[in-house]
């Protein structure tokens, strides 16, 4: 293939390629499922991919950037620039519908549904406050709603630790953010 042809690939194709890159910590999700890719565009001959961090200190951020670069270079993109964008801040509302299902099948309870709400932050806060009392997180294994929170932090910054009182299995809950 001529290099010129590669440079003309549509941004749709690039999105397709990026949907094949797994999140380094939750590999069942792709980067596009996670919602961290905010924009793909051509700037003259340079492909510009805009990425937003999930959490400011998330150690996976550097790995995500490296994985994006590795993938796109392997697809023949020679001229590439990654840009970081903080605003608007990432929210779990950007997790794709497929991503939420994949999480559940993987054994991680997806974040409480606040999709369709204008103000995701307020909703997240409500869910969090309710979490101290009566937020119901269904067990991703047996589906029971008889679960309890063990800790506000789980194996990664984006998750909390829960336990199912029915099947007695511990599980991660992907927090509203």
């Amino acid at each position, binding site marked *: 293939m001529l290099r010129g042809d590669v440079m003309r690939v549509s941004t749709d194709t690039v999105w397709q390629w990026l949907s094949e890159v797994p999140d380094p910590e939750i590999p069942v999700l792709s980067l596009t499922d996670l919602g961290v890719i905010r924009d793909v565009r051509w700037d003259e001959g340079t492909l510009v991919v805009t990425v937003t*961090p999930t*959490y*400011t*200190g*998330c*150690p996976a951020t550097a790995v995500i950037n490296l994985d994006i670069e590795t993938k796109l270079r392997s697809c023949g993109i020679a001229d590439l620039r990654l840009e970081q964008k*903080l*605003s*608007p*801040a990432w929210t779990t509302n950007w997790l794709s519908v497929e991503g939420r299902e994949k999480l559940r099948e993987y054994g991680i309870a997806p974040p409480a549904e606040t999709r369709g709400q204008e103000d995701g*932050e307020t909703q*997240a*806060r409500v869910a*969090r*406050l309710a979490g*101290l009392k009566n937020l119901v997180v269904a067990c991703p294994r047996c589906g029971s709603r008889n679960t309890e929170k*063990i*800790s*506000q*932090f*789980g*194996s*990664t*910054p984006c998750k909390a*630790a829960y336990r199912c009182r029915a099947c007695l299995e511990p599980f991660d809950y992907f*927090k509203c*953010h």
Partner: protein
Amino acid sequence: MIQESDLIASDILYEWLLRRGDTALILGHRVSEWCGHAPVLEEDIALANIALDLIGQARLWLGYAGEVEDKGRGENELAFLRDAWDFRNVLLAEQPNGDFGKTLMRQFLIDAWQDALLSALKTSANERIAEIAVKAGKEVTYHLDRSSDLVIRLGDGTQESHRRMQAALDALWPYAGEMFSADAVDEAMAAAGLAPNPQTLRPGWDETVGEVFKQATLTQPQSDFAHKGGLTGRHSEHLGHLLSEMQFLQRAYPGAAW
């Protein structure tokens, strides 16, 4: 009306950004000292995650401070190549961890202040400050939920946990006032619409911590005495010891890169 360009030329914006970045960095490092030592696994993980958030926030503030200073220093140079007198964190952040109760109380006092400060900064006239505040604010809200919950559970817990939480509050209270002190830097930032005057955050903070202490059955100290100096580079002896560990690699092997 003070213009943003004046604040940059006079180093006021730079100084103010260091206060934000250094407080997050030093507290983040302190909290990270718990890694592998916390009383239970869940708390060990929680502390490590909070430390990560804080260090991530420090990177955003210090990265911007380096750009404003415009002398070729980035987040790494600012974090690892300055000595104690160049740091602008509040004294409370550098206080030693002590026991788990003291660590938690320090976190709670700072979380409640950061929550109020970042909320106010979301409407800063400086877009970059507002962006960082929105991002960091989401994380700090979560930190505050956790620390206030634990202060209540331990304060209103066993006789021993109550005793430790009260001792922590009594020991740390004299360091709280510095978070609300205002000097020429704060006044200029407020006049330009870039940041709130810290004094205006005090009533809301008093209400938050007062309510939590009440539920935690803890007695809030009455004295208003406040240790100050961290924001202008006069630190307690603890900061030097902290830096000797945090900056060890760059001190021993100057210029070493990963």
